[in-house]
């Protein structure tokens, strides 16, 4: 279950293709997904994932707050309750992160994680249940981002210029490590996109050197093939099985 929860957020990781579209991420956007686990073609709905954006202003600067919440459906709460929040505070224009926070509560197991980005230096603090807080400092690449901001960054890209099969490598920072990620553009498909109806989408495959993902071209994201590039469907393959996130509602887009 922990790995499923991890992937549900990790599935949002995407590439460092050069941003070139004029579309920026708007404040006030809310995307709601139904997360389900698949066993031999049979599905069970496990959790709701909510991705939202809002403006945050400090005395000196403006940030875009990107948030991803994961909460198990009420029917699961008695057996295994999950309440996770992944957040990133980014520059509204470049989407470069300044602060990344992760708060995990999975069946009583808790982790609180914080990364403060100062250029290519990251100061992290991690607190796990019944363990003392651990502080670290490490260096990352200039284009390395956290998992949440990368998900939004990819939506500013112009996939219409990509050829089918084209791949791109990049780095993300997760669990205090830089992880290489490979993205493959796999063409277009029409899928259901919740309240948006059926939409033509860009099909993208994600490969990462991590135990969280399994299989070749089995971790897929469908982004609507329009300027907004709303993630309509995500399919993932992890060590404990496969699953998917289906967009149920998109508002404020």
């Amino acid at each position, binding site marked *: 279950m922990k790995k499923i929860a991890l992937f549900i957020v990790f599935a949002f990781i995407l590439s460092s293709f050069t941003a070139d579209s004029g579309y920026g991420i708007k404040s006030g956007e809310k995307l709601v997904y139904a997360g389900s686990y698949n*066993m031999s073609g049979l599905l069970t709905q496990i959790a709701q994932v909510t991705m939202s954006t809002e403006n945050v202003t*400090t005395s000196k600067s403006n940030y875009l707050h990107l948030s991803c919440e994961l*909460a198990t*459906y*009420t029917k699961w709460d008695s*057996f295994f309750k999950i*309440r996770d929040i992944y*957040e990133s*505070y980014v520059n509204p224009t470049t989407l470069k992160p300044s602060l990344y926070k992760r*708060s995990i509560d999975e069946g009583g197991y808790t982790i609180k994680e914080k990364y403060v980005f100062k250029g290519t230096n990251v100061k992290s603090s991690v607190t796990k249940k019944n363990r003392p807080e651990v502080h670290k400092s490490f260096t990352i690449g200039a284009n390395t981002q956290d998992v949440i901001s990368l998900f939004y960054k990819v939506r500013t890209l112009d996939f219409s210029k990509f050829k089918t099969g084209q791949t791109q490598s990049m780095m993300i920072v997760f669990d205090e490590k830089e992880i290489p990620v490979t993205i493959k553009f796999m063409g277009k498909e029409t899928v259901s996109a919740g309240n948006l109806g059926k939409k033509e989408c860009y099909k993208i495959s994600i490969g990462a050197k991590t135990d969280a993902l399994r299989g070749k071209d089995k971790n897929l994201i469908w982004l609507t093939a329009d300027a907004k590039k709303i993630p309509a469907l995500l399919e993932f393959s992890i060590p404990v099985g496969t699953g998917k996130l289906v967009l149920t509602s998109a508002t404020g887009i």
Partner: protein
Amino acid sequence: MRKLFLILAILFLVLSILFTLLPMGTIAFLPIGLALISSLVLLKKSAENQRRLPNWLLTLSAICSFVVVLKLVFIKDKVEVDKKFEQQKIETKIEAKKELEELENDLE
């Protein structure tokens, strides 16, 4: 051979009941299907005077299947408003704002 299918049918029925009680969705059909198949084979391999138990196993498996269908139709997936979680989100935002201001001061 009959003994083997008897054990399998009982085992899958126990799993079926468990999966039916848990919020497993359509995954519950997996043990239910296996329980039905095992029970049917058991029934076929049983003599006239041995068919009472296979019939019970079949009936219970069918009931499990019916309950799963009812749960799928009538129980809608929803997330409960969790006051503790909502409070945590508010506190995290306040904390983050302070941390961003500290970062801005450090960078100056």
